[in-house]
């Protein structure tokens, strides 16, 4: 038996030695992130290190990773996750700890370089509206989103509780500082779900992906929706009648993690280090309206002042937003999602 294990070990080691180039599989959302990542993140970083990068895309990387782990077929070496998903994945033992001796994180936004995941860009779940439907008075807060008399029109929300429950409570005037205290109790969670149920008759579509809510606004399918600022920025730039506000936005970030079952952890750390550098992070803002999590990116001179003005992590914008509490989400995700689903099918 021991010889067998040793033989297997030798074969594995031999494989690593003889592999000509390392191929890392990277799981990322599609859209502008994929385009920007190819151009300024993993594209140049892999070229510098002499690696090959194979891309997988998924709308929900936690699902993708769980399915891979559940099927015992983990093919991903680096995975782009949302911060709260990374906390859940880490709790479930699916992630490898990051080596901050290899990855330089000294200039990162506080709390954005966790033991298992390092921030890439910050984004906000915001409210967007059709400028043709509301030409005179634009909605300004979540209270307006729920106010169907002052702002009649078809709405869309995410078919998932994430960020939507925070918006529901904010619409009732809960102070940002009290948000997660209210959500800490079962009654608080039910209150948020009930508030969404109240608006349900007005919700024409429950969206599942960023691409979908961007398209819903471009097509004029709905008049108001929740969604991510980057997609609305793109829709606006494409000439769509779309406007959004950072006021009461829910600020979250996506981050790079390494699955515990990856065969190329060392190489993945090196690649992540290059992708986290201030210059790479600054360059990404040319592709997505998401804010760099490496604060030094704003000092590189690569981000023009007018671009910084629309980025959610720039000092002038991040003040009007609420930073999403990843710990609350990691602890309560299953419960709140169950309540949300029951509400959806009622």
């Amino acid at each position: 038996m021991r010889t067998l294990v040793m033989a297997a070990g030798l074969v594995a080691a031999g494989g690593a030695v003889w592999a000509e180039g390392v191929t890392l599989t990277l799981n990322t959302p599609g859209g502008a992130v994929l385009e920007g990542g190819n151009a300024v993140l993993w594209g140049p970083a892999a070229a510098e290190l002499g690696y090959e990068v194979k891309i997988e895309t998924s709308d929900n990387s936690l699902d993708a990773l769980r399915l891979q782990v559940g099927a015992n077929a983990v093919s991903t070496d680096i995975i782009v996750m949302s911060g709260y998903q990374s906390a859940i994945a880490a709790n479930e033992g699916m992630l490898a700890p990051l080596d901050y001796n290899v990855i330089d994180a000294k200039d990162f936004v506080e709390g954005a370089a966790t033991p298992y995941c390092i921030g890439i860009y910050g984004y906000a779940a915001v409210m967007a509206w059709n400028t043709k439907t509301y030409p005179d008075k634009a909605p300004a807060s979540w209270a307006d989103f729920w106010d169907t008399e002052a702002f009649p029109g078809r709405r869309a929300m995410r078919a998932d509780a994430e960020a939507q429950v925070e918006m529901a409570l904010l619409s009732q005037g809960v102070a940002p500082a009290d948000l997660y205290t209210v959500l800490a109790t079962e009654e608080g969670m039910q209150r948020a779900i009930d508030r969404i149920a109240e608006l349900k008759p007005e919700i024409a579509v429950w969206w599942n992906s960023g691409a979908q809510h961007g398209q819903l606004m471009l097509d004029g399918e709905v008049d108001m929706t929740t969604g991510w600022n980057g997609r609305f920025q793109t829709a606006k730039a494409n000439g769509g009648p779309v406007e959004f506000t950072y006021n009461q936005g829910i600020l979250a970030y996506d981050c790079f993690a390494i699955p515990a079952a990856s065969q190329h952890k060392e190489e993945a750390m090196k690649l992540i280090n290059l992708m986290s550098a201030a210059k790479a992070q600054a360059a990404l803002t040319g592709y997505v309206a998401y804010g760099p999590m490496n604060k030094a990116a704003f000092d590189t001179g690569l981000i023009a002042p007018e671009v910084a003005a629309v980025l959610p992590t720039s000092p002038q914008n991040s003040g009007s937003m609420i930073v999403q509490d990843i710990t609350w989400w990691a602890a309560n995700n299953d419960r709140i999602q169950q309540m949300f689903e029951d509400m959806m099918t009622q």
Partner: protein
Amino acid sequence: MSAALPLGENQTELARDARVERALAFALALPCLIVVALCVLIPCGWLFYLSAFGNDGSLSWENYERVSSGASYGRIFITTFEVSLLTVLACVGIGVPFAAFVNSLPPRVAGLFVAAVLLPFWTSLLVRAYAWLVLLQRNGLINTALIDMGLTEAPLDLAFNWFSTVLGMTHIMLPIFILPVLGAMRNIDPGMIRAAASMGASWGLTMRRVFLPLAAPGIIAGAILVFVMSLGFYVTPAILGGGNVQVISMRIARSLSNFSNWGAASALGVLLLLFTGALLALGLMAQRLILGARKGQDHA
């Protein structure tokens, strides 16, 4: 005279031939049976097995208790059956007249119509669902045309609801329904129709008393096929329902993705399988009753 023939011997040989034939047929069917066993029975058994374990890994009814206690599961099952039933009704309503029409055409022209039915069958589900969205959405082709013609002031809510879901599913299931119906109609002796007409039966009476009863086996087979397949639909309700039509397959997917709960998802799969099996058995029984009763009448 008959005593001269070695009848017994002949029978033995015939029986042996029949045995050989049966063995050969079984051997030919064997690869198929193995594939069925590997690809259907084993995964189904695995599904039953998974559904019997709770989240903590112990043997329990937990997954089934959750389904029976949560009101939303009942609603999801009802929605799934309602959507499937509406799809069957739409298929019968559109498919039977269409098949009867095609059946009445000369073979060459009929071939063209059958090809027209089969053509969308070769297009991806996803493409067809999005194509419907392009037509049905608020600023889509249909609403734009209706508004431009002055037929409606405000755009109609055509997409992201039950209507669009059933429409999309009917579009997909129609070829599957029409083929067995057309097969049954092809087998009807045109002489029967002429005979009925020559005896003074009106067109309506001929249809009701002669043509449709003879086509019934095909219609019932098609309806059962469509119903059972509709129960498992995922892509079409997910896209065209816009989250407003929650069917069982969507809940199974979310049980896996949101909660990574294989037990819960498997329990839903097992229940769907059992319900489908029960309905299939009921359908087949009804079919036998209807057809059997008629056969009795024919002989009388």
